[in-house]
């Protein structure tokens, strides 16, 4: 990829809504992405390899559990800081952001929120430094949008449990040290538990040949009579609200993150359109190009305002799951549309690895599906405003 010349668009001077510390956190993450991610990400994606050497740097910029309290190794930062870090990471690549989202919101968050004090102390500090990496097993081959139908199960046997079943589409699974897994107990109630690599009967085969999130590693979790000590079960949650709580936190991060990808596509398209001459003038001078660019910055600005407000609500513990759904859906869809338009502006160059566009576009096809598909989030909004459940 050519040199990263990214300049963040801030059309409505939204920086003025941020504190100096927010800006320092964001600018540090931005600088880190420019220095460490941009130079290697294209090749990592082409080779479909997760750049593991970035884990330490990710931990140092605060990508792992920024809002987890300091005493557990987290950053003790607010939700806007978390959002800004996700935005900058996804500006680099959605796959890198995915790794951070999973670690923070799908692994550290449930251990912190639902775990015992022993579980917190055992796992969180190591997860915060990236010494241990985690993954989150909810989706199953036959249960995606409808996770409540899961068949993975635990059965009590003396002082321990026996886990059976399989999860698929699990980000980070091939290299994760631990997995937060959701399974039904004998009464059919969903429980959360921590499975550790090395436990007998637990394997994590990798999913190959993805055309999306190629720099993020995805795989399965297979449980064949895995013996789970009772102390690995989360004591403080039962039912679907457990995994949904995690998803709320992760979706919030994605709502910010996807805007990062959109900003990168817009920035690249704007620069390219000023440099590319056709018919004797920069293509930026043609009305059709201007329409694309003007609509992009309008949508980015709207989305930026939306997630900032959502961040304020989340800091006050007032953001509802339906509000988070709306922002996730809007940001990702905005980013995907912008990636497609930006690709057109880049002409043939847009399909090459010289520019980040096609990579973002392909990545966003996963982002618009995982953590609740585009349509599922629409149904969540629909149910919230009408009171009618249109899922089943």
């Amino acid at each position, binding site marked *: 990829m050519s040199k990263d010349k990214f*300049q963040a668009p801030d059309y409505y*001077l939204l920086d003025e809504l941020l504190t*100096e*510390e927010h*800006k*320092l*956190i964001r600018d*540090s993450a931005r*600088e*880190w992405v420019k*220095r460490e991610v941009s130079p290697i990400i294209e090749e990592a994606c082409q080779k479909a390899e997760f750049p593991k050497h970035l884990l330490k740097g990710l931990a*140092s*910029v*605060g990508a792992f559990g*920024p809002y987890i309290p*300091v005493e557990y190794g987290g*950053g*003790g*930062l607010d939700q806007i800081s978390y959002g800004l870090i996700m935005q900058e990471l996804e500006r680099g690549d959605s796959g890198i952001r995915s790794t951070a989202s999973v670690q923070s919101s799908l692994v550290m968050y449930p251990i912190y929120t639902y775990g015992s004090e022993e579980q917190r102390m055992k796992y969180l500090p190591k997860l915060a430094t990236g010494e241990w990496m985690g993954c989150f097993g909810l989706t199953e081959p036959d249960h995606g949008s409808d996770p409540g139908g899961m068949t993975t199960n635990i059965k009590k046997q003396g002082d321990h449990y026996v886990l059976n079943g399989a999860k698929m589409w699990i980000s980070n699974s091939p290299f994760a040290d631990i997995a937060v897994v959701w399974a039904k107990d004998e009464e059919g109630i969903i429980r959360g538990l921590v499975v550790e690599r090395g436990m007998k009967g637990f394997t994590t085969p990798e999913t190959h040949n993805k055309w999306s999130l190629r720099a993020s590693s995805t795989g399965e979790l297979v449980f064949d009579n895995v013996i789970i000590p009772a102390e690995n079960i989360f004591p403080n949650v039962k039912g679907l609200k457990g995994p949904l709580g995690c998803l709320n936190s992760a979706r919030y991060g994605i709502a910010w993150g996807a805007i990062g990808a959109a900003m990168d596509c817009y920035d690249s398209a704007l620069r390219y359109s000023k440099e590319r*001459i056709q018919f004797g003038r920069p293509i930026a001078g043609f009305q059709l190009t201007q329409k694309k660019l003007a609509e992009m910055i309008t949508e980015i600005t709207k989305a930026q305002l939306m997630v900032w407000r959502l961040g304020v609500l989340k800091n006050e513990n007032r953001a509802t799951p339906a509000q988070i759904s709306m922002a996730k859906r809007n940001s990702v869809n905005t980013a995907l549309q912008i990636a497609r338009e930006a690709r057109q502006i880049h002409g043939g160059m847009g399909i090459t690895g010289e520019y980040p566009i096609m990579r973002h576009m392909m990545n966003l096809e996963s982002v618009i599906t995982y953590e609740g598909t585009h349509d599922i989030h629409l149904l969540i909004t629909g149910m919230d405003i009408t009171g009618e459940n249109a899922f089943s």
Partner: protein
Amino acid sequence: MKILVCITQVPDTTTRISFTGNAFNAAGVQFIINPYDEIALTRALELKETLGGSVTAITVGKPDTEANLRKALAIGADDAIRVNADATDAYFVAAQIADVAKKNGYELVLAGKESIDYNGSEVGSMIAAMLDVPFVGMASRLVVEGEKVTLDREIEGGKEILESTLPLVASAQKGMAEPRIPNMRGIMSARTKPLQVLEPAAADALTAVISYEMPPAKAACKMVPADNPALLIELLHNEAKVI
């Protein structure tokens, strides 16, 4: 070793520079730590990490410079001092920093080789003169062994290797250190590190800017098809009038 690092803030390199009357238009401009000062700061931190001691960041500026001082603290400085005055000219700034350096007994004062906005390259050497200690400018390497300091300077066609003693003032050039990105722990600890505000010592500015002028606009680039050298010659001859 007690090290004092001079920090100034400059407009981000992507800023579009404009003036209203005779004043720089700061509205909407992002200010960053002068990149050479960041190099000096990083080297100071490396020295502290191997030799012990402390690193103090100092700036002469109004409250709007504090965000960048906090950044210096986030990168790793132990404490910071802001001399509460507009940085009117190099002499005035140097007098303020020399005053603080004298009162607190710093053994090493580091600055950047120049600020990338006004490019004066004056403050470091003036501080040295005011403190009556040696000065080495534009150093690309700085090693301290006991009282002995070894420095490299890039010079025309090669490198000069110098030896000096502490106390010393030096200005940093590219190569002295690789600037660090603040990490989350650093940013969090910067919240509680001391940032002292001092009123300025008596000193006069010796120079004043009378006016600014923008450089002439870049001329448009004309593309000549590769298979038409005759057109190129004609343009060079008749339009550019260079042949």
